[in-house]
């Protein structure tokens, strides 16, 4: 097989893995025509988070933070072990964010700055490429002290989060806006085209209904910035920031596969450099860097003289004009240690802050089955899969509600959607076990087990219609899904403005029965600020965040 054929194989591999990844995120939803084998317990037909389970960085940091390699994360060895022998093939052949960066870098620009000599210079190894190792070591330090910050920058969770909570919902509203504008013109053909476009989107990409997510502007900004930076440096993110790339670079230390340079054949045309993705110095005369190379094979394919070849056991003897490649990572040990310590110290700093324990927002209601907060923060990679799969659009990424440490972790906004009592989808898709997988009886409870509780509902008597305005309304009680209902009514006498005594049924919450699902808050007709609302107190996962002395916990 010629190098050109192998390069085409690499291109095909990038497309296939990208599509698989995208398809899995797309399928992380409860589809209308889906037929589970059992009515009572709904399970997704595909292992939609499997791509995230192949992520060695997720495997490593969750192992450090929690001491176990959760469920499917063993798959990450399928990436890591070949990397030990071959180098960063994952970055060049598999990584969906890497491929996206690759393609965007390759779009021809109208600006000339990135062509010819300037492009050539920008593709030489640069010192900024060390940053990713410091990022990686920071993440390791934080993970060792139980805080998972790797998920913010790890490319697979990052891409899943960006597509799932930002790109697809934005596409949905864009489609609706186009259709609405087109029909609004009143011109039939334009209306038909607009509607047709939306219908096409609907059947291919969009979920059953428009999803809305809290504060996704920041998620979108990070994602767009990563993509735009490709216009400045080819694959800037992969070269400079990506902690997974850094991890794989370090694991390539003893690789037996690499670039062999024949300095006699080379005529120094530098075409290899022009095509280089990783900025790893493929040209004869510079030192090739194993830890930076994505194994994209562009250099070998570009070389007109046949001076470059990837092979097993490449020549490691330096000559005067041609230094041998190195598999050492070019990062100072001192700075790596400093980054690691930085990660370690960040955790106590985060947790000494008032948002961690002393004054965590009462509205951070975690998904059902979530681990206790400290363990949760040691597992959650913020991939957003739980948010995307939630049929009620109830789960949202936090901004600062759970502190800077908990950025983009899931929480329930009952006003937008409540937790469906019989639904266990978020635990099913969580790749790291931050949300543990519940069975139906663990979720709703049975004779032996109490139900899983995520919080408790409270009435705001100053806003509740029967309490404040002597007006009938029992919607919260109607929607309360427990049996017997946690919200009960009591006929009470209220005095209206004219001084008449009127009898109204007033809702009360029984905290011993309330599971905190938020159906009452969702259904309450006092729209802007609900007259009944859920806070996290009473959640099953916490030993301390409790009200009732005798309430049984799961």
């Amino acid at each position, binding site marked *: 097989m010629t190098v050109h054929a192998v390069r085409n194989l690499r291109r095909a591999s990038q497309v296939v893995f990208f599509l698989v990844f995208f398809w899995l995120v797309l399928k992380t939803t*409860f589809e209308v025509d889906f037929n589970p084998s059992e009515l009572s317990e709904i399970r997704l037909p595909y292992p939609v988070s499997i791509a995230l389970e192949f992520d060695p960085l997720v495997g490593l940091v969750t192992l450090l933070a929690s001491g176990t390699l959760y469920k499917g994360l063993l798959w990450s060895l399928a990436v890591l072990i070949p990397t030990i022998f071959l180098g960063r093939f994952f970055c060049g052949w598999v990584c969906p964010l890497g491929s996206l960066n690759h393609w965007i870098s390759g779009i021809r620009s109208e600006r000339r700055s990135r062509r010819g000599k300037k492009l050539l210079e920008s593709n030489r190894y640069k010192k900024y490429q060390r940053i990713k190792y410091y990022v990686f070591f920071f993440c390791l330090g934080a993970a060792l002290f139980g805080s998972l910050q790797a998920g913010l920058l790890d490319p697979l969770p990052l891409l899943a989060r960006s597509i799932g909570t930002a790109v697809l919902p934005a596409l949905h509203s864009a489609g609706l806006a186009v259709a609405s504008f087109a029909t609004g013109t009143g011109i039939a053909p334009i209306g038909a085209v607009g509607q047709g476009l939306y219908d096409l989107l609907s059947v291919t990409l969009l979920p059953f209904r428009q999803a809305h997510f809290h504060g996704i502007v920041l998620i979108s900004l990070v994602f767009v910035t990563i993509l735009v930076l490709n216009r400045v440096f080819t694959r800037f993110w992969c070269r400079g920031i990506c902690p997974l790339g850094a991890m794989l670079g370090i694991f390539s230390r003893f690789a037996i596969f690499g670039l062999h340079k024949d300095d006699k054949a080379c005529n120094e045309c530098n075409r290899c450099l022009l095509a280089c993705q990783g900025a790893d110095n493929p040209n004869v005369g510079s030192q090739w860097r194993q830890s930076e190379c994505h194994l994209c094979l562009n250099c070998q394919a570009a070389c007109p003289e046949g001076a470059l070849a990837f092979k097993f056991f490449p020549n490691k003897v330096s000559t005067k004009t041609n230094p041998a490649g190195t598999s050492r990572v070019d990062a100072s040990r001192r700075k790596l240690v400093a980054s690691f310590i930085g990660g370690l110290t960040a955790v106590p700093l985060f947790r000494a802050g008032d948002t961690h324990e002393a004054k965590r927002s009462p509205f951070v209601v975690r998904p059902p089955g979530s681990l206790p907060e400290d363990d949760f923060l040691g597992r959650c990679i913020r991939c957003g899969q739980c948010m995307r799969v939630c049929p009620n659009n109830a789960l949202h990424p936090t901004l600062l509600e759970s502190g800077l440490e908990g950025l983009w972790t899931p929480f329930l906004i009952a006003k937008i959607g409540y937790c469906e009592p*019989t639904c266990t989808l978020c635990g099913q898709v969580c790749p790291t076990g931050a949300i543990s997988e519940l069975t139906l009886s663990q979720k709703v409870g049975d004779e032996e087990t109490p139900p899983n509780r995520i919080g408790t509902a409270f009435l705001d008597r100053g806003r509740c219609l029967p309490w404040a305005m002597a007006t009938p309304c029992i919607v919260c009680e*109607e929607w*309360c*899904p427990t*049996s017997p*209902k946690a919200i009960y009514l009591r006929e009470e006498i209220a005095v209206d403005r004219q001084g008449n005594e009127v009898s109204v049924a007033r809702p009360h919450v029984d905290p011993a029965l309330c599971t905190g699902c938020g159906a009452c808050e969702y259904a309450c007709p006092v729209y802007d600020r609900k007259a009944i609302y859920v806070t996290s107190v009473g959640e099953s996962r916490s030993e301390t965040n409790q009200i009732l002395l005798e309430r049984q916990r799961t």
Partner: protein
Amino acid sequence: MERREFIKKTGPAVALAAVTGTTGFVFHNREIARRSAVVTKTADFEIPHDPALPILASATNSNPVAALHAALDGIGGIGRFVHAGETVVIKPNVGWDRTPAQGANTSPVLVSEMVRFCLAAGAAQVTVTDVSCNDPRRSFLRSGIREAGEAAGARVVLPSPEDFVEVDLGGVVLTRWPVLRHFIEADRLINMPVVKQHSLTRCTVGMKNLYGILGGRRNRLHQEIDQSIVDLATFVRPTLTVVDATRVMVRSGPQGGSLDDISIEDTVICSTDQVAADARAVEFLGLGGRQVGHISLAARSGLGSLDYRNAGYREVAS
């Protein structure tokens, strides 16, 4: 500067200023453009009264399908309600994410049998739909109604936001409201409620089931619930009401959740009179039609007869 040169140099600026100014004045103080129009429409699907036939037939049988057959025969058979070539929409209660045994939704067995009846009578298309309270995907799936409806040959529609049209319902409290378009587009409407306790209206049967044709923020309607139900029942006049009283939810309505909330009654009621159907069905909850605010208000508004026993009633033993 010469005149010609002056005109040349100022011309573009003057032209742009003229266009800008004109645009401002032309659009000054117009109404804000609205994209949705309000539809004024009635949804009267009733058939003419036949004095030879009862207005209500009730049948009890441990086999719900047999009970439905008997009750429908007792009121004149499907041929009276559905004719060849007509489109039919069936409105079961698919409000909640509950299984058939929990009795919060209409029995899927009855829905599929009703679909078969309509198709056998020559219906061009039978649509089964409802505006669920819980997520419609889960509600239609776990109630078994999606599968039952599709298996019987119906088109089961899970409403999406684009399926609603603004309709002027012309009621006392219910005026402009989004209505699921399938309910006003069909030729025949068969309402298939289930009997449940409800803490505000005391019961959910046929007329209350019509809430499920509405979209929007219908939880506001609870403030004047009796009048809004009657408004709705005045606007929507079903061809036939088929009450599923096989598993009656006697407490924790309208969702239930526990089998303890269910009383097995094995009864199916068919009626051309919404008020009579509700009045008969609430007896399973230990109530009379007069004790239920919206049923007596509906009777007073002339929507039907509370006193169904005198208006033509047939109890079918089977």
